């Protein structure tokens, strides 16, 4: 109750803030303060645990539980430990595996998704809502229901521990994601411009290359990022259907073993987590606006 009341007041505040030129000389100081306090809380919410992971990843193993809020006992040892293979960890290989699985899944999802989304966004045909329903149903499908049948099937046909054994189930959630996101993007595209270009004498090929492609590129690109992140983050299916050779990073991190038995190698695991996360953080920093558009357009989580 208390929360919702505060909410209502916030709304009034935001409302007034937007129109203050007309109605009020100045946004009250305490309102501005409250907004920025909220912003600060959200930023800390997002960044603090991540910051703690990075700080720990640079800390000497002996000082794992140091609680100084800034980097202390700085070392790069943890990153070396992560890439060592003498204790049965194959983190470097796992990174390559994740890249391969993510890239192939993304390309398949994007190609099939572009076709389907184009039809769903621009064509009228019978059964459109059935197709949308099927895609939606697929996006709600619990991944665990694939584990049992595929575990047995892949063992029978000798695919256990192959890349296709991981790529095929990943398509089950990446394809619905690409279709939903691309359909939303395609619906928003100003397709009339294509007509205009043709009236101005462009051939269909030119209209596509010079008008449609540049317009569609951001949507395709955003969808590719979302699809890749979704595949990169997959854990459940990979933990059941991969072996040492095809293991992706998520599984490698979950099963990471340290130098001493019965001592959890926290600092090295945090270093591994940092390595896995940094590429995603770079993507997020570079394309945050588009990623947010893509996430909310599709309404399907990656």
């Amino acid at each position: 109750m208390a929360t919702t009341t505060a909410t209502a007041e916030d709304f009034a505040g935001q409302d007034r803030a937007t129109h203050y030129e007309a109605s009020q000389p100045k946004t009250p100081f305490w309102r501005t303060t409250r907004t920025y306090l909220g912003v600060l809380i959200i930023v800390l919410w997002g960044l603090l645990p991540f910051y703690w992971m990075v700080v720990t990843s640079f800390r000497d193993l002996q000082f794992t539980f140091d609680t100084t809020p800034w980097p202390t006992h700085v070392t790069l040892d943890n990153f070396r430990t992560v890439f060592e293979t003498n204790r049965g960890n194959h983190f470097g290989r796992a990174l390559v595996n994740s890249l391969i699985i993510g890239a192939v899944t993304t390309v398949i999802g994007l190609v099939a998704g572009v076709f389907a989304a184009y039809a769903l966004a621009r064509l009228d045909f019978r059964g459109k809502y059935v197709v949308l329903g099927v895609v939606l149903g697929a996006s709600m499908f619990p991944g665990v229901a694939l584990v049992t049948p595929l575990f047995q099937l892949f063992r029978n046909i000798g695919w256990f521990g192959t890349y296709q054994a991981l790529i095929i189930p990943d398509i089950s959630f990446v394809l619905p994601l690409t279709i939903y996101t691309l359909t939303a993007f395609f619906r928003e595209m100003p397709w009339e411009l294509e007509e205009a270009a043709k009236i101005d004498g462009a051939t269909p090929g030119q209209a596509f290359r010079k008008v449609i492609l540049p317009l569609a590129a951001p949507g395709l690109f955003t969808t590719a990022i979302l699809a890749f992140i979704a595949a990169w983050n997959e854990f459940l299916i990979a933990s059941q259907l991969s072996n040492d050779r095809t293991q992706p990073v998520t599984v490698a991190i979950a099963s990471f073993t340290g130098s001493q038995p019965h001592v959890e190698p926290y600092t090295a695991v945090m270093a591994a987590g940092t390595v896995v996360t940094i590429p995603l953080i770079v993507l997020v920093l570079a394309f945050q606006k588009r990623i947010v558009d893509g996430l909310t357009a599709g309404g399907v989580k990656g």
Partner: protein
Amino acid sequence: MAVEQTTPTIDDADTEPRKTGRRARPARREQLDPHQSRRAALLIAPTIALLLIVIGYPVARAVWMSFQQDQSLDPATQMFVPGGFAGLDNYKHWLLQQCGDATCAPGTTAAGFWEVVWITVFFAVVSVAIELVLGFWFAIIMNGKFRGRGLLRAAVLVPWAIPTAVTAKLWYFIFAYDGIANHLLGTHIVWFSDKWAARAAIIVSDVWKTTPFMALLILAGLQLISSEIYEAAKVDGASAWQRFTSITLPLVKPALMVALLFRTLDVLRMYDLPAIMTGGGAGDGNDTSTLSILVVQEVRSNFNSAAALSTLTFLFVFLVAFMFIRFLGANVVDDGGRKR
């Protein structure tokens, strides 16, 4: 590469310019153009084929397996023979806890079934409720007027972008006995050996990771509401509370329902966090197990009953989705609802 692949399709589509003008609008049924229908069928075909392979076939196989008996050793030949049709035995195994002719002994995976269902629902209700309240609050702040919007957006995307497996390890470290959580709280809780502490740790991790996603979906809904409506309501003398309950809530409801639906289904399928943080245990046996964890445990010992359990899991998830869409009005398919 993907972009080049689209070339023929879109070129193709525009060799008939007369139709383009109508395309964006939903046409009435009787006006369907056979050319469009054929082209649509061709474009949709790869997707349907892929979905049949990656979902249709496994599901059919799982359902078939769930009605099979385990293979048994034939005393005459010393060979394993397929068990044949099992009727509903594999389902009774879970729902009625029947192992063979007797009731399943405590400690077996089947005996934990209803407890695990309860825990899964508990995780879903508590996590989603917290995420909803926090996410709404985040969204309202993000909808306000301030500098540094890009920084804020990047910050909320960080928890979303970190792989769940890494999130699990990160919070496992934060909640370690000597970790920062106990340090900051001034407590000495062994988080992962007490069932409620472990559940709380899992919920905190999940809420941290997914509240930003909830907030972004709600924010997209809030941004659709024009400020003129609030102005008008204020002129008419509506209080802040009245404006919230009779303008904000109803108008943001479609976005809210979609966010709720997707998050609820996500938590019902939750696996990564508890599997990595506690292995489904903590305290004893199944204290933090979700349905997904139970399926994975069962796959190791018995395919057929695991198939029955995974079939039950996805029926359960779809039942919840159906109830959301049917009774709570979550509108996920309609064209108009998702416009920005």
